């Protein structure tokens, strides 16, 4: 308390619209996870279910990186210098899943 009294910095008033938006995004993330959870119970395991899972995960990732990490509002060059290298990951996924199938066939 003693420390707080010494403070002479005046906080600016909170922007309620901005805070409300953050909670709304949290609500989206919550709902998307609930949907994934329900689908895990009701849908049979297969390509369709996996596609839904991956799509919903990418949507969640977009909200976390874009809004929470604020990347959506950075300059274009910064956005691309983060997003473009991720293409390597996509390539690695395809290459190694294929490779995994090949290992299975050899065994």
């Amino acid at each position: 308390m003693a420390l707080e009294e010494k403070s002479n910095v005046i906080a600016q008033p909170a922007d309620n619209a901005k805070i409300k938006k953050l909670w709304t995004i949290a609500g989206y993330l919550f709902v998307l996870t609930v949907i994934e959870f329900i689908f895990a119970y009701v849908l049979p395991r297969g390509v369709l279910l996996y596609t839904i899972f991956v799509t919903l995960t990418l949507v969640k990732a977009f909200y976390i990186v874009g809004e929470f990490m604020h990347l959506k509002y950075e300059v274009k060059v910064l956005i691309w210098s983060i997003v473009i290298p991720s293409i390597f990951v996509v390539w690695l996924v395809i290459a190694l899943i294929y490779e995994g199938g090949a290992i299975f066939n050899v065994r």
Partner: protein
Amino acid sequence: MANLASVSAEVPKKYLWSGGVSPLKASYGKLMMWFFLLSDAFTFSGLLITYGLLRFAHPAYEGKAADFVSSHDYWPIPERVFDAVPFLHGVSLPLVFVAAMTFILILSSVTMVLAVEAGERMDRKNVIKWLLWTIVGGSTFLACQAWEWAHFIHGTDQGILLSDGSRFFGANLVINEYGPPLFASLFFFITGFHGFHVLSGVFLLFIAFYQATTGVYERRGHYEMVEKIGLYWHFVDLVWVFVFTFFYLI
């Protein structure tokens, strides 16, 4: 407030090459955090893709998920492995506990972004409040993961019947009751590496909490450190979203 990005727009052109202007309109520290996180994303991708490769290299379980019995011959269905919840011994509730952990981490991500928002307004009281909630969320997640590990290592009541007639319970790096040895190894590696990130994050948050409380950031004139730790914390949340999908759901 003290946002370096807003400063750079007002600097006259002749000063552009003499420092004082941040490239990409983000401060040095934030930029480096972004590139560190990108490299960390590659590391986690490496681990998760290894999981995918090894899963495809093993025989898959054929049949209905409800009839699943664990065996060393095929890769297990994660939802049949992770179906335990604390205090509900013997009740099969697939994925309930992991989903709860996901919610906890998402919530702590929201409190973190609220701390960053308060920092931009130089609102020390709210920065302290939301940082504390984030620490609570992160610590709860770690506690959940400790329970998850303990349960995984000690195993279920039935265990698995070995060829010599004895039963094996739980998991280690050589053998486990859920499936091929690599299944347990990957569980330890992937969730362990992520848990270590959360642990580091909680330490960083605690330092930020301490410095915000003692007024270090106020004297410095900005709360950029909270922003940078926020980036790291959201990244840890992001990784968990992927781990949840690729390790627990699929």
